[in-house]
């Protein structure tokens, strides 16, 4: 156990340089396009025939340190994040944390429900497919899954929107009725969200479920033919208990190592689908911020995603070590 603690501590320490490197990379990337937010802002104003107040813009530039050399700008940005100051969104003219705030919770809600649903559906189907390999049920479910994989999310979104409009006569875009958009949380708002959420969940979840079914099936099939399954059956263990205790447990490793990519996926949301459905999630906002060179918003966002990826990988590594004695005992130096 002491080795385990040392391993975790070591992994935490390694995270620090990793995150520093990532932040430098992100900063470089968002600075790569020529110009800055104010330039594209002036361009935009010019395009619609208005004149920009150049003096005010120069003032703003100075205030946000855009006239300073790059390393100083980087340090200010990175340093601010350490105590929760994610900078200022020029587009929304609000601190980044305020802009993201509400949308973040909605995104987490949509993604969590989607992921939970994906697992709930994919696991039984995957297990069924693997244990009934080459049966009609397996073929049928495989076909369905392949369709789910092949249809692009946004097409599905358009189709569902159309159908819902014809059948229920409602617009299913957005995550809630438009009148609640600016309102604080209330029972009515919660109800409205629940009414709207199932469409994006189905759309975003379809491909994920199909992919997950294929992976559960493939991983379980590998394990089902292993010798230890035969051993367990020869003991007289109930077939279902054999399945759950041995091959299923072994096939879960892929699932645990997946946690690393699940966390950032929760936050970024499915961008394209969200744009099509005009969801109030963070995905469309990130795309918009990148387009308009709203650097603090975009940068903080990317940084947050990177942070979640690193944490996610850490969590899955630790979980793997805890769950799989081979990794715990062979890789380390327990003996």
């Amino acid at each position, binding site marked *: 156990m002491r080795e385990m603690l040392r391993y975790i501590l070591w992994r935490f320490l390694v995270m620090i340089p990793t995150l520093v490197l990532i932040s430098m990379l992100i900063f470089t990337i968002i600075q790569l396009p020529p110009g800055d937010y104010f330039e594209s802002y002036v361009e935009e104003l010019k395009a619609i025939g208005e004149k920009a107040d150049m003096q005010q813009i120069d003032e703003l530039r100075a205030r946000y340190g855009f006239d300073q050399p790059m390393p100083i700008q980087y340090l200010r940005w990175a340093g601010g994040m350490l105590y929760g100051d994610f900078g200022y969104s020029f587009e929304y003219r609000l601190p980044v944390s305020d802009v993201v705030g509400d949308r973040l919770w909605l995104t987490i809600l949509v993604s969590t429900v989607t992921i939970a649903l994906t697992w709930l559906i994919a696991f039984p189907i995957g297990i069924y497919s693997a244990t009934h390999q080459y049966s009609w049920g397996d073929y049928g479910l495989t076909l369905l899954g392949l369709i789910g994989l092949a249809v692009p999310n946004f097409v599905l979104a358009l189709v569902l929107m159309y159908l819902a409009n014809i059948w229920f006569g409602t617009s299913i875009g957005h995550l809630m009725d438009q009148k609640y958009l600016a309102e604080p949380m209330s029972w009515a708002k919660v109800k409205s969200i629940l009414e709207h959420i199932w469409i994006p969940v189905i759309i975003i979840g379809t491909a994920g479920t199909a992919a997950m079914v294929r992976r559960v099936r493939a991983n379980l099939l590998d394990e089902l033919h*292993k*010798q*230890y399954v*035969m*051993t*367990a*059956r*020869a*003991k*007289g*263990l*109930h*077939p279902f208990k054999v399945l759950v*205790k*041995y091959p299923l*447990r*072994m096939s879960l490793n892929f699932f645990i190592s997946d946690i690393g990519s699940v966390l950032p996926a929760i936050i970024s949301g499915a961008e394209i689908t969200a744009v099509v459905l005009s969801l109030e999630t963070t995905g469309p906002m990130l795309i918009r911020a990148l387009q308009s060179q709203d650097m603090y918003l975009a940068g903080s966002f990317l940084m947050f995603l990177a942070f979640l990826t690193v944490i996610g990988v850490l969590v899955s590594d630790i979980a793997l070590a805890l*769950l*799989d*004695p*081979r990794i715990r*005992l*062979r890789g380390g*130096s*327990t*003996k």
Partner: protein
Amino acid sequence: MNDRTDLLRVEGLSVSFPLMSGSIDAIKGISMRIRPGKVTALVGESGSGKSVLGRSVMGIETSIARIGGRVIFNDPATGESIDLLSLPHDGRQIRAIRGNRIGMIFQEPMTSFSPMHTVGNQIEEVLKIHTVLSPAERRERCLDMLGLVGFAEPARAFDMYPFELSGGMRQRAMIAMALVCRPSLLIADEPTTALDVTIQAQILKLLRELQSKLGMAMLLITHDLGVVASMADEVVVVYRGEVMEAGSVEAIFRHPSHAYTRGLMAAVPDFDSPRDARLKPLREIRVETAGLLDKARSTAALPEVLLRVEGVSKTFQTKRAAGFGLSQPQGTLAVNDVSFDIRRGETLGLVGESGCGKTTLSKILMRGVTPDSGAITFHGEGKPLDVLGARGADLDLLRTRIQMVFQDPVSSLSPRMTVRNIISEPLEIHGRGTPLARLEATRRLLSAIGLPDGAINRYPHSFSGGQRQRIGIARALALGPDLLICDEPVSALDVSIQAQILNLMKDLKADLGLTYLFISHNLAVVNYMADRVAVMYAGRIVEIAPCEVIMREPVHPYTKKLLAAVPVPNLDRPLDFEAIGQPSAAARKLWARQFKADDDGSDDDLTHVDLGNGHLVLARRNIDWRELRP
């Protein structure tokens, strides 16, 4: 015959597996019986359906198998007589018998346990299913059983994971698992095939002891007639799903009436037959070496020694916990000051149990592992080459002169390459000839190993184990090497296929003027192949001598033990379990004092004593050589 006296009676059992087109009949009406408290051996080659029979009795054959006939189990505990095949598939009744009244152990101790659960957890599970004991009582029973199968510290083993145990210990744990409910029948499916001879002897001894102590019957499924001769009371010989011959072990071995049984016996290498007598495999391969690149070169003008190994040592510093039972505790000398010569045109046998360092040594010769010290010189046709220091063109040349044949015919061939790609790859790497010439060379190599021309575009999976091993040999021969290092080339094969491969290798050697370093754990195989033999134990060569001397007048106690551990299909030479049943580390303590270092454990005062005629034995420095002869 009163059928109440039979523990298990198989009547007209047939098993077939439906395929897309038609079906495979794995078993075509087998009838046999197992008497209580007796060992019945089911003998046959791979593919004869013997493992299918074991699984069908237990009801754990896949559900798509179509099973007919009757399997009557007369449970001595209840006096009931049940037709196992009439019970519902995976139903409660058959599950109550599995693991409880009939136990089963399998061939692969590596994969038969789940690596995720402790040994104790998996053994205790059997008791959980079949008994109503409290957790403390269950643990008690498991520890008793672990002690019984030879774990020195059962409590420690209980909490260990399977991959922390060596192959032999894992098979012991497997036996504990199968026997913890005290079944009246144990089905042992090739229980020792994956183990080397010394461990095999220990496991067989254990099975024999437990069998008489617990008064259970045993169905021993094996391809090895040597094992049968030492273990069985009754023998059933099967071929392609049918019984060829059945009877008492005396009748089968003294007067084998069926040609197939006689064929099986002739295929096993034996110490008693003269060394130049050729093994008779069931199916002989015709070797056609005509046209092979450089056939039978004249070697008269070349030095006698082909490869000289001097003082090679290798220490592994890995901290890894025991992986496959081969890895050493930290800082162990895997190869300890090893010196020997391989003479041009001879076969040098290198013998020892797993973990003795013989594979590490072969890797050092191939430059796969770099030794800590020592020198290796290769005397080819040009100037002598320093094997360990060769670079650039020298190294390329060396690579064409020394080639390797591996143990596992499955994993040593890439499943994504055709036979043509596999065999011609060495030629491509060394830029030999045009593509057309390479294809021609591949064809000639294929006919040299007795495979049809049509095999050239097929993938390895469509060949049997023995055919794959032949492909591996052809690949090794592609560059026309001088020296072949063969690392256990036949230990993954059935005895009948083994004889085939051994004969093939002998023929190729004679035709092509090759030199072999033949590594094996089985002294009978080495006896058939080698001109001289080096015996290795714990990283050191303990004895090296001409083959007849090692076989007839071994001096070192470890050599004697290895010799005794080989099961031969001869009732007059059963395995002497008293002599060989101990683990080597324990047996080492009983070696005569002239072979042991002082009790402080330092090996320094051991040296190779020359007994004349090229016979060297590792013994104490200050000992008189006459003391070594018993």
